């Protein structure tokens, strides 16, 4: 049974998703149990993977380029642990909400399972299929409240995501035409020969795949869908989207750049400079747009664009330190952004308004939640004892080492702007008294009653994670290190 673990990690949430649709009562228990099962399975794999052993599973017994195989290496292990850990917290956080029916948990489990599918698969077309499954589930999760705004946001995302995935598929077609196989490791073996004979086609396929993933990651010129989708979705879904789903795009990009197109090719067509430029632009754009927002969740959504710019700069630098910083920032941003969205969900439910102004006095009413918000937002700005500082520092260090001084200046400027907009929120949180929101009194009573331990504990856990990773950055770096060394000194099996 132990050789089947990689597929069981994917299938257990998937099976639970269908069982959730069939049973009315046990939906939450089923969802939680399946995710915990997946986490346990992943942890049992981790010791094998970290000892340098790649876990490979051939579906249907067809190996190599014939069939689809799953490969769990250090990088995919790192990303799958982020996905599963945050997924569990999102499910726990959405437990108290009564409005979330079976469909909600079904879609949540499908999206989590397909994220793991994207991460583990070694077949590039299978990656596309899983990504499409993930996108469909996410469109529906955004549209879950079925109000006009969410439907519009979801449709907007559907159009842009559809175009992006079409580009991705076209890029896969280019790769298949050049190499005659779909297995990523086999494509990597054959691509250098194709690169020598027709360089422009290799570059074109890279551009297509990078554009497709760029839409999903929402780098600056392709970000149009993100602010609406991330801010209008229900709060747990926003946390999932900003914390995890965007990272799947980053994973795909890393996988494609470092496994399929080798690093030398990447440097030869100098796309790392393009990554840095895109990162800088979306950094500045996200920061300055966030400054202008009045809506709390919209502010957080623009802040996501800002932080992903930092990850892009780290990836573009491409040295060991830069990659460590980038992957560490992926982890940190996942933790911090989901804390912020969880807190924002509670704040909006309690005060009954989405405006930043309406939050005044919340800090006195629920100091613990407000304090967690402060911790995470300090991390976003990059203030020393919190985890965001460590990864930003690493990226700045790597940039200086590699001779890019301009991005460092931009990161510092963007951090200052981030400080401006987060301190505005914090100031409102702790100043003034709680205003009566738009919500009627009896409804508010209910909401506060519902703010029970399932709501608050995920926030405390995540905030503790922020502090822990900030005080002991060596711990976080040791989590990232195996993946980085895989990327830098990768050996094609």
């Amino acid at each position, binding site marked *: 049974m132990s050789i089947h673990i990689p597929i069981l990690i994917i299938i257990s949430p998937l099976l639970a998703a269908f069982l959730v649709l069939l049973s009315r009562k046990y939906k939450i228990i089923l969802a939680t149990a399946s995710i915990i099962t997946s986490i346990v399975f992943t942890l049992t794999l981790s010791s094998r993977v970290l000892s340098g052993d790649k876990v490979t599973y051939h579906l249907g017994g067809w190996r190599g380029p014939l069939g689809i195989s799953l490969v769990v290496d250090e990088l995919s292990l790192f990303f799958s642990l982020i996905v599963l850990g945050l997924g569990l917290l999102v499910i726990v956080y959405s437990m108290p909400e009564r409005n979330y029916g079976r469909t909600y948990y079904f879609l949540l489990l499908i999206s989590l399972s397909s994220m793991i599918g994207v991460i583990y698969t070694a077949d590039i*077309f299978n990656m596309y*299929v899983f990504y*499409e499954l993930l996108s*469909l589930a996410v*469109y*529906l999760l955004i*549209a879950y409240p*079925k109000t*006009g*705004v969410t*439907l*519009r946001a*979801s*449709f907007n995302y*559907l*159009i842009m995501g*559809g*175009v992006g995935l*079409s580009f991705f*598929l*076209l890029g896969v*077609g280019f790769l*298949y*035409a050049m190499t005659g196989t*779909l297995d990523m490791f086999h494509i990597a073996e054959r691509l250098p020969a194709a690169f020598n004979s027709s360089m422009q086609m290799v570059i074109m396929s890279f551009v297509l795949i990078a554009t497709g993933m760029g839409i999903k990651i929402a780098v600056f010129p392709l970000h149009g869908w993100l602010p609406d989708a991330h801010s209008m979705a229900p709060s747990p879904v926003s946390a999932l989207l900003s914390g995890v789903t965007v990272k799947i795009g980053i994973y795909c990009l890393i996988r494609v750049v470092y496994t399929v197109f080798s690093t030398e090719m990447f440097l030869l067509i100098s796309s790392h400079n393009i990554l840095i430029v895109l990162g800088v632009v979306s950094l500045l754009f996200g920061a300055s747009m966030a400054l202008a927002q009045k809506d709390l969740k919209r502010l957080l959504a623009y802040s996501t664009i800002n932080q992903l710019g930092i990850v892009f700069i780290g990836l573009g630098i491409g040295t060991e330190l830069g990659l460590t910083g980038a992957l560490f920032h992926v982890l940190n941003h996942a933790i911090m952004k989901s804390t912020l969205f969880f807190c924002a969900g509670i704040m909006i439910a309690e005060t009954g308004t989405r405006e930043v102004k309406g939050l005044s006095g919340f800090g006195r009413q629920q100091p613990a939640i407000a304090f967690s918000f402060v911790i995470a937002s300090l991390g976003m700005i990059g203030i020393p004892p919190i985890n965001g500082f460590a990864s930003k520092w690493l990226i700045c260090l790597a940039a200086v080492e590699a001779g890019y001084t301009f991005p460092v200046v931009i990161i510092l400027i963007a951090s200052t702007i981030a400080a401006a907009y987060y301190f505005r929120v914090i100031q409102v949180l702790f100043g003034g008294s709680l205003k009566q929101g738009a919500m009627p009194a009896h409804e508010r009573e209910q909401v506060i009653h519902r703010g029970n331990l399932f709501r608050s504990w995920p926030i405390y856990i995540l905030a503790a994670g922020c502090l822990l990773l900030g005080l002991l950055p060596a711990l976080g770096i040791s989590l990232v290190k195996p993946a980085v060394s895989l990327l830098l000194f990768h050996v094609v099996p």
Partner: protein
Amino acid sequence: MNPVNISLLVCMIGLYGVMSKNNLIKKIMGLTIMNGSIVLFFISIGYRKGGLAPILEKGTTGGIPTIIVVDPLPQALMLTAIVIGISVTALALALIVKIYSKYKTLDIQQLSKER
């Protein structure tokens, strides 16, 4: 102009439709055109001159076939891609129906004005 180039041209026409049209249904049409062009692209990269459909004759016992057969892998992939395209289109149409019943318009300019 061979089918490979034509499929890329059609793909760009679909992209033009998605970007420039204001009607939501026309946008979805553009997406469908893109999907169809990708199907054409995959099928044409798998084509072999003089190749037949990848279905062997009844009664063969395996081994090396004597006839030239086109590459079956892109065709199998496109079965998947077509079904995914249908799913996206169906979902998009359902969203459009819902949006129309909320706002009574399909024009994206008017939709973006409404709050």
